């Protein structure tokens, strides 16, 4: 990969990586750290990675960095990653989007990650499996379970309203 292709990957994928990590971690500062670490790792291997595979490399690296960060926090605090940190750009959400955000935040980390990769980035089951280290069957199962939970959550909200 050339320097120009590297810089192009910054323009093309940094938003998606940042969005994905931010939705999972719910912390802007940590999401920025993950994005910077990810691109630094990419730069160190810039000659080994081709431009066609840079997106999957970025998301794979970012995902594993995020998981490491979550596990480290669990060891230090004994809790899951703080979920009360909200993104600062919350004013543009619609009603359904806000409900979905809350519902997604309640999903287990694995299900949340695979659903985000599927919906935000349009990855196939095989690609999601490569990024997360899961099998393709596991990815399908997580997506099915996640969709069902979200549907029931929305249904319950509508029932209350």
């Amino acid at each position: 990969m050339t320097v120009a292709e590297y810089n192009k990957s910054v323009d093309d994928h940094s938003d998606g990586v940042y969005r994905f990590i931010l939705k999972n971690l719910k912390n802007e500062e940590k999401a920025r750290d993950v994005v910077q670490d990810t691109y630094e790792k990419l730069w160190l291997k810039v000659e080994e990675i081709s431009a066609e595979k840079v997106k999957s490399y970025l998301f794979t690296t970012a995902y594993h960095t995020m998981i490491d960060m979550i596990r480290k926090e669990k060891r230090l605090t004994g809790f899951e990653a703080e979920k009360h940190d909200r993104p600062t750009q919350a004013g543009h959400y619609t009603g359904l989007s806000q409900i979905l955000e809350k519902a997604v935040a309640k999903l287990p980390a694995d299900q949340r990650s695979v659903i985000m990769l599927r919906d935000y980035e349009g990855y196939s089951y095989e690609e999601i499996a490569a990024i997360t280290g899961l099998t393709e069957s596991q990815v399908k199962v997580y997506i099915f379970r996640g969709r069902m939970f979200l549907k029931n959550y929305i249904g319950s909200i509508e029932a209350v309203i």
Partner: protein
Amino acid sequence: MLDYLEGNLDPLLTADLMAFLAENPEFEKYLPDYDSSLSLSDTHEYAQKNELKRGFADLPEITSGNFDEFCIAACEGLLDEKDINRLSDFIAQHSDKQHDFDLYRKVKLQPDTDLQYTGKALLKKNHRPLPLRYLYYAMGLAASITLLLMLVFRKPAESNFTVTLPVNSSQSENSVPQTEPLPAPIRRSRDATPAPLKELEPKVIAASNAVSLTPLQPISDVQIPSPINPPRITDHLVSAARNNQEQNPSRPYSSDSFANTYLGSLLRRVNFWKTAETAITGFNYLTESQLSVGRTTDDSGKLTGLLIEMESYSITGNKIK
């Protein structure tokens, strides 16, 4: 394990050992009857795995139990046209399921495009700099080649004397004084050998002219042509070698071969003592100390003594004669 291999292990312990090996197959290789082909590792897979799998088409009908799965598969794009039609027919037959199907269509997340990473400029790279070590390699290689060339190639031969002719009155004031090349330099080496002597042939006088000939004067001196013509000594005659010796009295004259190289001529121009004094000045400035170095030389300029002084002590050394 040793007891088992020697046949001394209790049957109950043998059973425990076998159970342990069943759970930890990596230790089976230590058994004498170990057969690697029978060992199951993580790389062993069931080859006909895909034949066991089933799809939505294998489900004979859509029921309340698998309706959610069909809806999710439809939203994921996993159903073929036939199964989509079956689902549509089921929903048509069960109108209360339409709401559930609509909810499944809503739970697809949409990317928040307003959420952008603002530090892109810091991530970008302008260029990929070469590793610094390559620069050191290149500099070292260039310096080595330069020093080698300066050591190998010799400066053109210089004449030992430079002669400037006095300017004539008829010449203009701005004219450059003409210098004429010396016929042959005075060789200071010991290798100069004089040219062989020429002997004069006796003159043959014809007998008819014998009366008019005057008696020959005896040849008292043999004329020996000298191959060396001493240069004209003028007021402008300068000895280049003498000047060099006066300018650098403390420097021992190096051998001819090294001095004639570019590197040797470069080193001749360097005044190492002044360089050392400058370095000591810089050292005193940086460390706020008062180090000084002095020397004593004899009439010929050779170093005879050295003095190093600091704030609290001084060191003197004289050359051992």
